[in-house]
């Protein structure tokens, strides 16, 4: 042993393949990210359809259109968005330590996770839009029911607008999950508490501000003016903020046993 020189490393694989392998890591078990959500959504849809059947069987023709209007506000499909929030939390919290053990950088992991969420948002938005098209073509699944074409999802809009609305909703939920997961991975329970406290202050503080300045009507007016498409597009602002903040938080996170 004479002078010690530094051993050299082979070049790293290209950056896209380093990010893409994170997508494959997070979706390694396709049941979690793809199969199970559709199965549950299908089950919920079937149950809803049966409930419509029961309702309409017991209503006269005059009450029928009234009930159909009410169903347009159905929140039955909302489950899938909450599922995606949880999926984002799980994906980041549990794939992060494994990815680092496999020799990924935090930057690659975070970008890979975000790419996964964008791709899943596209896939689910396309699926839901197809559901909406079928719903329109079958005149509400033969019963005049509403599952995919509810008010929050753009109602009667053309397919590409509906696709956009769904896409915005999915991104919003995925990236809300991202920031909470990032806070947890970095600072564990205290990170989560801070995140929830900040959120609570924003909501309560915003409410107080609107109340004291008596400007609630301005908010509702703005939402009404923007319409569903405009309002939902605004969800991209918190989504992008969460993504950026989540990236910064994860850049200095450490996997702990």
């Amino acid at each position, binding site marked *: 042993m004479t002078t010690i020189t530094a051993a050299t490393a082979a*070049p790293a694989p290209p950056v896209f393949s380093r990010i893409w*392998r994170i997508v494959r890591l997070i979706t390694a*078990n396709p049941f979690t990210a793809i199969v199970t959500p559709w199965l549950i959504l299908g089950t919920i849809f079937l149950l809803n359809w049966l409930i419509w059947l029961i309702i309409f069987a017991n209503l006269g023709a005059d009450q029928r259109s009234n009930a159909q209007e009410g169903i347009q506000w159905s929140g039955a499909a909302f489950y899938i968005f909450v599922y995606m929030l949880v999926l984002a939390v799980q994906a980041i919290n549990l*794939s992060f330590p494994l990815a680092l053990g496999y020799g990924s950088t935090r930057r690659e992991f975070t970008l890979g996770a975000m790419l996964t969420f964008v791709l899943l948002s596209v896939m689910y938005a396309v699926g839901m839009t197809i559901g909406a098209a079928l719903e329109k073509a079958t005149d509400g699944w033969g019963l005049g029911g509403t599952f995919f074409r509810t008010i929050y999802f753009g109602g009667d809009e053309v397919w590409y607008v509906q696709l956009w609305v769904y896409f915005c909703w999915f991104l919003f939920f995925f990236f809300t999950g991202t920031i909470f997961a990032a806070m947890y991975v970095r600072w564990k329970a205290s990170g989560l508490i801070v995140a929830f406290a900040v959120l609570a202050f924003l909501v309560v503080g915003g409410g107080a501000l609107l109340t004291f300045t008596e400007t609630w009507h301005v908010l509702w007016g703005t939402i009404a003016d923007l319409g569903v498409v405009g309002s939902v597009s605004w969800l991209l602002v918190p989504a992008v903020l969460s993504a950026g903040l989540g990236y910064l938080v994860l850049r200095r996170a450490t*996997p702990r*046993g």
Partner: protein
Amino acid sequence: MSAVIEARSLSKYYGGERGGRVHAVEDVSFSLEENRIHGLLGRNGAGKTTLMQLVTGQEFATRGEIRVFGASPVENARVLSQLCFIKESQRYPDDFRVKHVLGTAPHFFANWDPAFAAELIERFRVPVNRRMKKLSRGQLSAVGVIVGLASRAPLTFFDEPYLGLDAVARQLFYDTLLADFAENPRTIVLSTHLIDEVSNLLEHVIVIDEGRIIIDADAEELRGSAVDIVGPRGAVDAFVEGREVLHRTGLGGLASATIARLDETERIAAREAGLELAPVSLQQLVVRTTIGDTPDLSKGDNA
């Protein structure tokens, strides 16, 4: 010789600047050469895992410098794509089965050998369809061992890889590691406290205690570096007078002391003084060095 890892005055503290601060790794300097099997030995909580996390860029150093393949490992894709570090407490995604671990690992390791992985699964009898959460401790360790071996990463860490493995599986791991290392030389860091079992594998040993490196030597050199002298208390005391005693213990009129290597004339002198000489195993050496020269019977230290 080329150094794969070089640390200079590396420290990692947890907690704030004042009170409650924990020194996990303190002012550590060492270098590990390429294509050797290094042992990172120490008691639980000595700082082994923190040190490995610093080397793999998973932890951020408080002070000092760490270079892996000549560069800082932190967020360095070129460096990190050379390593594999499956922690003893490695967490896996909830929905992962063994096959998902083995299915995703090849994307991360350029040298991954699928045939070798399949052979190891067979030999370690790992149930590939079982959920990671349902694995026994030994099976979990086996998955880590399989990934570590089949990755053939130029710098591979094994963190207490034998936990929960039965004697057969442990021997299988040691044999496979040695055989595969001979065919595919790479740098291996094996963290363990079962020192005797691995002492024949190790070429270089670092012993860490309370965050500090207390031994950094070639294993061969270390094996002959200390000797036990046993005999009547008076004779032992007289012989060790003026020498550094690593460890001392007594029973009635008999005493035993662990001291540094003796040369031939010293050995003859010791025998003439009615003392017996006994070799000290690597494990005993580490145990004695980390306990210090005052035996503490409450720690079960009576040897």
